[in-house]
């Protein structure tokens, strides 16, 4: 018997951790990029009956390769059902029938609010970002939101410059007051570890570190006094099958 040393990148760890957060049989609102990779990885491994829904209107999509864009024909061809964009938002996302939504952003704050609109002032931005897309309603209506983004000091801020998508607002009870019916961000998966809202304060606290990452590294990349969960876990490293499957997934035309 020989032992092979397995190595992986921080982004691969993040994708694998995101895929593990999905349970078989869930329905999942997926965006292009890392969420799509994570969801398709989960579908190939532990969650074969994961239902993938893309905002371009495909329900029950089972792509052989990763879509290059949200308009990729593979999404329609491999879907159980293709509906219009108004229908996907009104009949499928809005009523809260989708279990998990993935989000990312340029900034996230201590309460899980996300900014994908502008850095700086809205009318005189330092950086103009793409804007809302489907994110605000994913944040409002999915039963749970999983945020996946690299943990960097400029991105993990005490307060976002612009609230594009509401996390836990300014604290406990805010989502209910705002009429947001999903649970909001239940987990923020980064390249360093996992943050989850403290049930008492709704503030994101560190609940897991990926293998090889230290609390100090996570604190150094967080723009607020990051609390550490008393039950801090260590993420299991990517398994050989996870890495092999992740690396083996081709993107259409790629």
């Amino acid at each position, binding site marked *: 018997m020989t032992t092979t040393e397995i190595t992986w990148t921080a982004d691969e760890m993040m994708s694998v951790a995101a895929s593990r957060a999905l349970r078989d049989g869930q329905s999942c609102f997926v965006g292009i990029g890392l969420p799509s990779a994570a969801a398709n990885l989960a579908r190939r491994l532990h969650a074969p009956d994961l239902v993938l829904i893309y905002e371009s209107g495909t329900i029950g999509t089972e792509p052989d390769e990763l879509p290059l864009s949200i308009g990729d024909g593979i999404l*329609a061809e491999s879907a159980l059902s293709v509906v219009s*964009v108004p229908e996907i*938002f009104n009949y499928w996302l809005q009523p809260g029938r989708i279990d998990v939504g993935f989000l990312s952003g340029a900034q996230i704050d201590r309460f899980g609010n996300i900014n994908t609109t502008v850095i700086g002032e809205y009318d005189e931005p330092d950086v103009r970002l793409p804007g809302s897309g489907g994110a605000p309603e994913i944040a*409002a209506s999915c039963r749970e939101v999983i945020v996946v983004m690299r943990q960097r000091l400029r991105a993990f801020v005490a307060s976002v410059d612009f609230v594009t998508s509401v996390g836990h607002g300014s604290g406990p009870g805010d989502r209910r007051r705002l009429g947001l019916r999903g649970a909001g961000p239940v987990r923020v998966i980064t390249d360093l570890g996992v943050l989850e809202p403290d049930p008492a304060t709704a503030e994101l606290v560190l609940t897991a570190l990926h293998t090889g990452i230290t609390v100090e590294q996570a604190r150094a990349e967080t723009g607020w006094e990051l609390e550490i969960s008393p039950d801090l876990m260590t993420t299991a490293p990517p398994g050989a099958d996870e890495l092999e499957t992740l690396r083996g997934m081709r993107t259409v035309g790629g």
Partner: protein
Amino acid sequence: MAKIVPKIIPLAQAVSDLVHDGDTVALEGFTHLIPFAAGHEIIRQRRRRLTLVRMTPDLIYDQMIGAGCAARLVFSWGGNPGVGSLHRMRDALAAGWPEPLQIEEHSHAGMANRYVAGASGLPFAVLRGYSGTDLPLHTDTISTVTCPFTGEELAAVKALNPDVTVVHAQRADRAGNVQLWGLLGVQKEAVLAARRALVTVEEIVDELTPLPGAVVLPAWVIEAVSVVPGGAAPSYAHGYYDRDNAAYRAWDTISRDRETFGGWLTSLQEGSSS
């Protein structure tokens, strides 16, 4: 009255007839079936002061903004999908080059419902959205209504009724009925919401054979149909061609710099109309 005369005319004529300076123009297609050729013809005909409406302004609107067609942009997500930012849009917003650009910004759900209201002859639509976000502070076509039965407060968005909607479809018959399939986006709603609609198609066929998942738009809700094979390139036309991803990446380089962009624009304007 229902229009029975098929108006299958060349694209240059259709744009000349239907798109006027100062119009509110929606070019729709959710990453799939983007009406690039029609957008390029609008650039060639040097339309000005347009309000450009589109859920996902991407290359085509970056090109039109850079060419100076636009005074205002109504949108919900602006970027070069999978590549990065829209440099011409950023330049117009930050530096007013070549023209100042105002924006009216929504979420996807908000924009989709604005088209639905427009297509339905209603002045507004109701949705669960925007609550707690900063968008309503900056966009005056977002408001609220109270449910008369439950007292619950919900978001309201103003209907969108473009002067002209332009979409690309796979095919039309000789009567001008249009069929499109694959990812459907918001095209039906955008066409039905418009005062005038222009559809470019890959081809004209004798009969629109029914296809799974296809939508048919009757000729009498369309002002003009223009045959433009490849009219959605470099984006997708399901069943005809895939996205030319190299063109999307190349745009990032072309658009970063005003001068490089100027060269692109000159060669577009010197190209002949379809």
